């Protein structure tokens, strides 16, 4: 299987990465390795923060500058009562308004250049309609461009290509496993 060349990801304001589902986590880690010199707002939709953090640290990725928007923990019944590191918990993946508000709060908190990483647009379409996800993505991209943030969104290959077709027009660069 061919690997995506991620080295020039910093040259684009917005990148959509279309990856095989089984390689997605490895590619996310590779993206973080490339962009980790800047703060990253990581919108976590596949796994909860408690699962992601040890894996990243075990993979040698600096996590000090990663700010998590965890859309999984509370929805899966996890305890979100205590403040934990650089993480804000979203009630559930359907709460796109709250995700946008949280990202905006991070924009205000983090001055200068930064990245937003969305770990799987596919997950959003499991809980929301494609049109809603498409509008959400457009909104995030608009806010990012006004706040010195570059966007890297991941999605999986597969039968749900209509979402990729809908949102690809908003991105400057599409990277796809051949």
């Amino acid at each position, binding site marked *: 299987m061919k690997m995506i060349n991620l080295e020039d990801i910093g040259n684009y304001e917005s990148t959509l990465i279309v990856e095989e589902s089984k390689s997605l986590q490895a590619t996310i880690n590779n993206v973080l390795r490339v962009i980790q010199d800047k703060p990253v707002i990581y919108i976590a939709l596949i796994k*909860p923060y*408690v699962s992601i953090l040890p894996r990243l640290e075990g993979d040698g990725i600096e996590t000090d500058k990663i700010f998590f928007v965890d859309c999984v923990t509370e929805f*899966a019944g996890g305890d979100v009562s205590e403040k934990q590191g650089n993480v804000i918990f979203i009630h559930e993946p359907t709460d796109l308004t709250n995700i946008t508000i949280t990202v905006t709060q991070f924009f205000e908190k983090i001055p200068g250049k930064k990245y937003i990483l969305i770990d799987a647009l596919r997950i959003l379409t499991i809980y929301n309609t494609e049109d809603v996800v498409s509008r959400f993505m457009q909104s995030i991209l608009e806010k990012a461009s006004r706040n010195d943030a570059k966007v890297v969104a991941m999605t999986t290959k597969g039968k749900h290509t209509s979402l990729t077709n809908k949102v690809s027009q908003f991105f400057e660069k599409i990277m796809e496993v051949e």
Partner: protein
Amino acid sequence: MMAEKTSLLGGEDLTRNDIIVLVAPKKEIRDMLVEVNKITGANPDISFIVLNKATLDDMSFTRYVHNVISQVRVARLKGLLLCAKEDLNEQIREDLEMFADLIKEVG
């Protein structure tokens, strides 16, 4: 035959992966239940769940699986999930690959 299947579930797979989905033909699920119970019964940190699609449509089943796996992760447990091969189509299998750490065809 069953001894060979059991060997697929042990050792490094359980050490390295938090969530393992075992995919078996429906007619062999009952045998697999017994074998997997032997492993999980001896280890309280491993949660054993049978994923049953039953009358759920594809998207509801995918949401259910994501929720179940997320609950296991949030509880900081390991999960061994058993799923009938006949319940999976190409899209559900791809989603499973994204949610789980390892998928193993057994039986």
